[in-house]
């Protein structure tokens, strides 16, 4: 699977000029704070649209303003993970993981075992019936990952997923990502400031930068 984004997006008076191509690999997105790294992820997820250019995933066009084509985020099969796990507080752990499957119309008799299976793969099966506000940061982030990957996304976007973790769970989570990613033939983008993340997970970098008086670029 190949992700290709070439074009310009605008948020208020902030402009980001994007030209990236990512294959089945893990790529680090680096750059100073507030320069537009998250905006880049939002464009891929469909939470932010291009004003010119095109976004393509494999053979399917995700966003092409000149032809008026735009695939909504709920139809893109893109997994998005934030710095906070953002587990739904009104659902327990297994129901959080089953959320995406149920929203896609998967029957409960299938969704629940699949969710449990996903929890097992991330080593948190024993937490299945827990309330999410009883989880530690590292546990919550694993559950969030299980929830994002159980629907078999076509792209994975991680926005500083380690920032809220302490050192030891940071290391564990990094190892887990490396293992899980190894078998996935899809593009993976990870926003991070950490050199160890980059060297242990990523094949290369996409740099987002802004020079005085010019629009920001992502290359």
């Amino acid at each position: 699977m190949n992700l290709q984004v070439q074009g310009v997006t605008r948020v208020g008076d902030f402009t980001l000029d994007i030209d990236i191509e990512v294959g089945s690999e893990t790529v680090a997105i680096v750059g100073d704070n507030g320069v537009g790294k998250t905006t880049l992820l939002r464009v891929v997820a469909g939470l932010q649209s291009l004003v010119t250019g095109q976004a393509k995933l494999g053979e399917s066009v995700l966003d092409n303003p000149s032809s008026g084509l735009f695939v909504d985020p709920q139809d893109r099969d893109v997994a998005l993970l934030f710095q906070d796990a953002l587990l739904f507080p009104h659902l327990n752990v297994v129901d959080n993981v089953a959320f995406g499957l149920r929203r896609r119309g998967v029957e409960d008799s299938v969704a629940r075992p699949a969710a449990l299976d996903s929890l097992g793969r991330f080593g948190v099966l024993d937490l299945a019936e827990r309330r999410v506000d009883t989880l530690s940061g590292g546990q919550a982030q694993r559950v969030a990952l299980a929830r994002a990957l159980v629907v078999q996304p076509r792209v994975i976007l991680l926005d500083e997923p380690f920032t809220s973790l302490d050192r030891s769970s940071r290391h564990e989570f990094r190892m887990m990502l490396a293992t899980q990613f190894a078998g996935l033939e899809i593009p993976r983008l990870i926003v991070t400031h950490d050199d160890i993340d980059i060297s242990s997970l990523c094949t290369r970098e996409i740099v987002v930068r802004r020079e005085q008086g010019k629009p920001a670029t992502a290359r």
Partner: protein
Amino acid sequence: MILLGSIGALFIALPLTGLIARTPWSSITDQLSSSTALSALWLSLGTSLASAMVALVFGLPLAWVLARHRFPGRRIVRALVTVPLVLPPVVAGVSLLAIFGRNDGLVGRILFDWFGAQLTFSPLGVVVAQAFVAMPFFVLAAEAGIAGVDRRFEEVALTLGARPRFVMFGVVLRLASPALRAGIIVAWARALGEFGATITFAGNVEGRTQTLPLAVYMLLESDPEGAFALSIVLIAIAIAVLVALRGRYLGGAR
């Protein structure tokens, strides 16, 4: 400090104690089953619930727009919503007359000429008056509740494949539901206690527009015991509301 605080507490506690002392406990069931009391009870129950529904049906979309959309004039709309909170209820009633009055109200005349409908001196008018003063309580609570839901929950739900309608009802409003529940209870309680706007706009017709507070006021002249009995009912409801909202305002057991 302690002295002033004690005076403050007494100031609130004394009238309540006085009311309980004056209540004709031995004959309270007779008092409450008089035709005036019964019709006021049922009318109040019906109209206040209807007003709470009105506040919910129209207030929720309003709260959503205020919380989730940035548009020119948003601050003005927001300020406007809060006006009934600070408006003297009598003035609220006069304003309602000015627009919904049968003879000289702009909208009221059209309603009467075209549909033969009259809001003044009708139970529907009571609902209008109550909803007018009660809705802001719900809108403000709901707006705060909706605005307090992290937008990234919506984005996560969308990327997981949830349709926008489900994201709205099944995620955002679901997460805001404690605030919505508190808002609707406060709005309902406000509608139940509404006096000034109701008597000004809808009048004081027994069986049609004479709600509990109006009946209390009227009975005070003719039958003080009945007035005290009805007041106890209103206080009981108020306490029930506080209990329902405990933790939120009392900061107690959670």
